């Protein structure tokens, strides 16, 4: 497709949604639902996408995507409500926003703060969309040159990177979590010889572990256990005046917004790294780059703009590897991948060949979702804030029921629920002990691909490992994997510390 044709597809998708009242209603409804999900502490963007996946599987793909992207965009933005109004971030991605947002609210500037976060989030989402349009076809074209060796290494690359960055403790825990995910993906009959692996003679396990119930179990159940087990405090929101988007302040901060958006897109594009990390990195960078770093944390505009622009720009970033290589860039994107797979579409390098214009449709939906989010944010903020008074104990058990019926409805298999509960309990303990979940999910999603491609590649090379070193992309991926591994060993850290010490003595 040339640029003209691409514009044509983009605008025809855009106008087909705009002129379809059902889809517009769905877009605004799901975005509002997303904002509510994001605003209420305990409910996350991933959980929102997961629950809506179960409700939209019967809809046509485009309509389902409108709903899913709407809730995704809305939920990432909605997290800022809790941060600003009650100093409890609605989602992890809005934690950085609380540092300055709540201080602004205490000064009586809650409306202005929400106006700034609404506008900067909308700009961030639109910016991310722009990068989806540009980079997805480029990366997909590059990925088309990949052979089995590259795809195998890509799965390992995803686990190593996401394990290294998302781990709150030692990185080895992130990697082991990824390998656990790979192991779960091995359960069932293998793709090449149809040999049953780790099925314990259970017939239901022979077709393998289904991704969506695993994702709902991994992200939903621990959240439910955590919220109910720990006493949650419902705080009274601060007073909210008129939510006014301060365009002059936005204009003054435009370079700052662009930098934050770039950080968001960049971090989003790394497999398995979520919006929370994007927000913190952006906040840290803004503080470092600021002429008045001391103002950060006291209620400054730059603080909330940095985190909110980056976390919403991260959505576009996360879509790039998802659409071009089938590797989700963030946990909600992993859920989105599950939803797309249910509709019989496999994201990856072949996506644009098999379904031309799909990426542009997604981009058009993202742009419209950012608009819907901005409109709802400006008009309905006062109503959404009222919901912050609803305690999590009232709705969390209902979420548990939704997880249950949703997982069941997808395949009409009670066995999926039997798997979901242990998966959820396991995920709860793993999180509690510092093992991150994103690498595990990446492992489950990419395990099948890694296994089949490794064996297929070796079959072609007659068992020779030489292509790992002779193929340029494979070699680069291998070097990155080895580098990531080596730089995270204590031996390397001791060596660099000694080296620095010696240098200092000289």
């Amino acid at each position, binding site marked *: 497709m040339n640029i003209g044709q691409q514009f044509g597809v983009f605008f025809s998708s855009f106008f087909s949604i705009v002129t379809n009242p059902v889809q517009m209603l769905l877009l605004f409804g799901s975005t509002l639902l997303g904002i509510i999900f994001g605003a209420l502490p305990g409910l996350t963007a991933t959980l929102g996408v997961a629950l809506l996946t179960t*409700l939209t599987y*019967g809809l046509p793909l485009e309509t389902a995507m409108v709903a899913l992207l709407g809730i995704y965009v809305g939920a990432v933005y909605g997290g800022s409500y809790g941060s600003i109004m009650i100093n409890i971030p609605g989602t992890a991605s809005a934690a950085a926003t609380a540092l300055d947002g709540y201080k602004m609210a205490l000064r009586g500037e809650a409306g202005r703060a929400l106006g700034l976060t609404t506008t900067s989030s909308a700009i961030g989402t639109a910016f991310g969309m722009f990068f989806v349009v540009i980079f997805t076809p480029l990366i997909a074209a590059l990925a088309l040159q990949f052979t089995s060796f590259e795809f195998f290494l890509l799965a390992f690359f995803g686990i190593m990177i996401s394990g290294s960055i998302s781990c*709150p*403790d*030692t990185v*080895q*825990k992130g*990697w*082991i979590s990824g*390998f*656990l995910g*790979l*192991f779960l993906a*091995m359960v069932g009959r*293998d793709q*090449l*010889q*149809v*040999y049953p*692996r*780790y099925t314990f003679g259970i017939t239901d396990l022979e077709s393998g572990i289904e991704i969506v119930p695993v994702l709902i179990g991994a992200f939903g*159940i621990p959240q*439910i*256990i955590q919220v*109910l*087990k720990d*006493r949650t405090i419902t705080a009274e929101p601060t007073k909210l005046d008129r939510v006014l988007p301060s365009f002059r302040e936005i204009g003054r901060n435009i370079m700052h917004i662009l930098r934050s958006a770039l950080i968001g897109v960049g971090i989003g594009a790394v497999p398995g790294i979520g919006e929370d990390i994007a927000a913190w990195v952006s906040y840290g960078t803004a503080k470092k780059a600021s002429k008045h770093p001391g103002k950060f944390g006291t209620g400054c505009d730059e603080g909330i703009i940095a985190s909110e622009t980056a976390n919403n720009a991260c959505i576009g970033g996360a879509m790039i590897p998802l659409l071009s290589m089938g590797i989700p860039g963030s946990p909600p994107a992993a859920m989105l991948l599950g939803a797309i797979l249910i509709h019989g579409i496999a994201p990856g390098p072949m996506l644009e060949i098999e379904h031309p214009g799909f990426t542009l449709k997604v981009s058009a939906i993202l742009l419209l979702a950012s608009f819907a989010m901005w409109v709802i944010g400006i008009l309905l903020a006062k109503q959404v804030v009222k919901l912050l008074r609803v*305690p999590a*104990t*009232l*709705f*969390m*058990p*209902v979420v*548990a*029921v*939704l997880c*249950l*019926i949703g997982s*069941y*409805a997808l395949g*009409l298999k*009670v066995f999926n*629920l039997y798997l*979901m*509960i242990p998966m959820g*309990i396991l995920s709860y303990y793993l*999180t*509690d*002990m*510092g*093992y991150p979940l994103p690498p595990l999910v990446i492992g489950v999603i990419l*395990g099948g691909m890694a*296994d089949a491609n*490794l*064996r297929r590649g*070796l*079959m072609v090379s007659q*068992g020779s490992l030489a292509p790992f070193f002779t193929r340029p992309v494979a070699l680069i991926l291998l070097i990155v994997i080895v580098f990531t591994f080596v730089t995270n060993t*204590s031996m390397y850290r001791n060596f660099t510390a000694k080296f620095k010490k010696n240098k200092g003595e000289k």
Partner: protein
Amino acid sequence: MMDKSKLRGADIITGVLFFILGIYIIAEALTMPLKDSYAGVESVWYVSPALMPLIIGAAMIFLAVYIIVFAFRHGGVAALKMMMAERKGEKFLSDKNIRYAAVLVPLISMVYLNLTRIDFFITIVLFLVYTITVFHVDDAQIMRKLTFLYTAEMVFFLLLVVSGLDKLLTKLFAYSNDILALIYIATIIIAFSRNIRKSGVEIYRKRFAQAMWMTWMTPVVLVPAFRFMLRVPLPFEGIIVNAMSFVYYAIKQ
């Protein structure tokens, strides 16, 4: 995440568990066709279904050893001893453990026990009536009493299932499990209202009313939405869902 002072102690336990898992993965992989023929196809090591599990198992053992060694070097043994000592002093039926059980018992019993035996509408109500109220009212004494009651009810139903008596009862009357579950729900509601009245705390009454509203509204919305709009056959359709279907199709005709 767990407190850093305890984390290294827990790392020793998780490290050992992952090590054992790694060993199991490799042991199981070694039983897979490596060089032999499977289903008439001669296998070689590089196309064997065992190849990837062997890599995963080896990586898991290596990383588990790393985590154990790291934990030992960073005060893991002392942390583990501290954790053990804390556990020793803690009562099995402490408020903390009861609270944890209050989350898990209804969730597990709903999925593994009730879902395929009791009408879906009643299953949801049975889960919500206990879970929402117990956490929304959030009183340690009430939680303790009601958790015992709920667990006892579930244990009784489990005994019926294990002994096969539930099947015998359903042969006599098709909806006997549903009736039993409705009795359970009534018992829980009565127990809650009595305990709340006894506590004399006014806010509990308001919370109880909110919990009841949420408990009954959820299945009233969800069940028809999934059964009649999304056309999802529910895991078990008993007295209420069948009655709903009867009304729905009667109106439709």
